[in-house]
């Protein structure tokens, strides 16, 4: 698995194309993410942000181009796909917790059955993670008994339990009531500070401004502009970027 071209690049995406039938959803997308970097992807709905982030762990299959995650090329080989999925945690817009399992079981399931951890160790670690996301007292409840914000924090803990090197966030706050967005963003901010590599699709411009190392603007299945938050919010170059920021910051 070793032998990376550049050891600092943990995600390498080169000229990726994806079609849904005739619809060209991703057009020649290329992006490199460095270790410990926080990349925020913004753009109007239908711009391909979610599709792009979901190709990285093969929830969506790309038809051409190259994706390498932590030195592992993403091919049709199931072993490679599973290896990449072990390295990348994912947080979804709709949380996607397992409703028939308790919070603790949600978190320990994959460590026990994929990482082959002992149940006791997995539970210990799960409790530490729940502590970290601020809801240790909810460990024995079912997801349906938690608020949206609590569910999303459990989802983050569940992803972290696999000790991933990369965390992918697909609009993690879009399904939340306004008063719960803050608690999830705080967990994500803490995660970013701890040095986690993160790729975040979001509409939270405050988060992008405060936490992102780089912002990627996508539109129509293409990457239109990449830059630092400072560049984006003071000096956007492309007309499409300017228009989008105008609309969203009003």
């Amino acid at each position, binding site marked *: 698995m070793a032998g990376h071209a550049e050891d600092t690049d943990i995600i390498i995406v080169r000229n990726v194309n994806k079609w849904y039938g005739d619809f060209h959803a991703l057009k020649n997308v290329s992006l490199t993410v460095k270790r410990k970097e926080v990349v925020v992807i913004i753009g109007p709905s239908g711009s391909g942000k979610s599709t792009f982030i979901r190709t990285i*762990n*093969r*929830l969506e299959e790309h038809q051409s181009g190259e994706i390498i995650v932590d030195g592992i090329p993403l091919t049709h080989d199931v072993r490679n796909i*599973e290896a990449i*999925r*072990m390295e*990348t*945690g*994912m947080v*979804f817009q*709709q949380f*996607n*917790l*397992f*409703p*028939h399992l308790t919070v603790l079981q949600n978190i320990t*399931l*994959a460590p026990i*059955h*994929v990482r082959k951890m002992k149940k006791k160790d997995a539970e210990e670690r799960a409790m530490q993670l729940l502590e970290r996301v601020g809801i240790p007292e909810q460990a024995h*409840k*079912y*997801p*349906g*008994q938690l608020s949206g914000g609590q569910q999303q924090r459990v989802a983050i803990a*569940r*992803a972290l339990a*696999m000790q991933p090197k990369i965390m992918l966030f697909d609009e993690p706050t879009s399904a939340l009531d306004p008063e719960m967005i803050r608690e999830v963003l705080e967990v994500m901010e803490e995660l970013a500070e701890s040095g986690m590599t993160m790729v975040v699709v979001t509409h939270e411009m405050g988060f992008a401004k405060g936490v992102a190392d780089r912002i990627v603007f996508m539109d129509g299945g293409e990457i239109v502009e990449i830059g630092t938050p400072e560049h984006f919010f003071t000096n956007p170059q492309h007309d499409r970027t300017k228009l989008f920021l105008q609309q969203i910051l009003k």
Partner: protein
Amino acid sequence: MTTEIRSTTWVNTNHPAPAQKPPVTEVGPIGWLRANLFSSVGNTILTLVTAVALYFIVTGLVRWVSGAFWQPVWENRKLFAVGLYPVAQMWQPAAVLLMVSALFGLSAGRWGSIMRNLGVGLAALLLLFAIIPIGAQAQLVMAAGLGLLLIGYGVGARVPIPSRWLALGWVVSLPLTFILLGGGVNLPALGVRWQFAPFVEVNLWGGLMLTMLLAVVGIALSFPIGVLLALGRRSKLPVIKWFCIGYIELIRGVPLITLLFMGMTMLPLFLPSGWGNPSLLVRAMTAITLFSAAYLAENVRGGLQAIPKGQYEAADALGLSAFDSLRFIILPQALTKVIPAIVGQFIGLFKDTSLASLVGLLELVAVGKAVIQQPEWLGTPGGIAREVYVFIAVVFFVFSYGMSFASRKLESKLGFGKRQ
């Protein structure tokens, strides 16, 4: 305090207001009567009509039941219970009953919830037959069964027996039942011949015991087959997919009785030549299992379709293999969603076992028919068919209702905090 709706700004200084009791006419027995029986003119008429109808039905029923001729049912109780099973070897079915009672007790103590409900049902039945003078030995067996059930419950509640062992116990109990009832193992195809008692040919098994065996084997075997068929139907591999669709649609398009007759005549054609002729019982069980599996597959498919795509994606994203994802995430949820349908189908299967009487198996209904034909009752005015069939109906009802009750308990237990 009422809201000053005309003012632009207003603050409720009385907040929080103390909660008050609802008016007497809305709650309590009077409120209940008003709300449920006499809420309107139409409703009142309906209530009165129903009451009159109920009166006639109940009094008619009571009059008939008390005057009916129950002697044939009573005197043939052994036949209804186990068919022609040799009296000298009755300890073998008794052993099976004791084994099942003990397993129920242990499971009820260990797992609680629906096993406890079913255990209570079984305990009530055992108690009933330990009291009714059906025969000293049989009563003793029933009492022993009740004792084992209670001891099992105590042990199960205190000793943390691994669930796996208990489940294994249930799995092993099925073949063990056949060995116990048969008096040994006689499989000429495998060259196995071992016995601890004189062999009891399966054509002597009968009555409620046979009905239960047909139903339990049908349920236990059709469940895994049905789940596999449902998964196969959703497979991406065309050969598997089309085989499963073909099987399911073919079986669902044919009445069970046809399959039973085909099983009787055609099953040997599909078996390796050395296997000889399977018994009538095996043929009927095969037909019932294959039939039930096709319906079960469709029920399970309904459950699979109700699982949101996000569940698969979350399992994938965590790196779970396809098998683990099915085992831990998809199937538990899919099966939970279709418990009512599955139990409904199993109740249907339980009652459908009566069709086996048409292919020569002496199960409950066939025993009933035989009893009606017995010469000693021929002179009875009006015949004895009513009594016999009412008795059989009651037996079927008790077990069907038990299953239905257990299913409702299971559903509410698996509701996992409804908000989602």
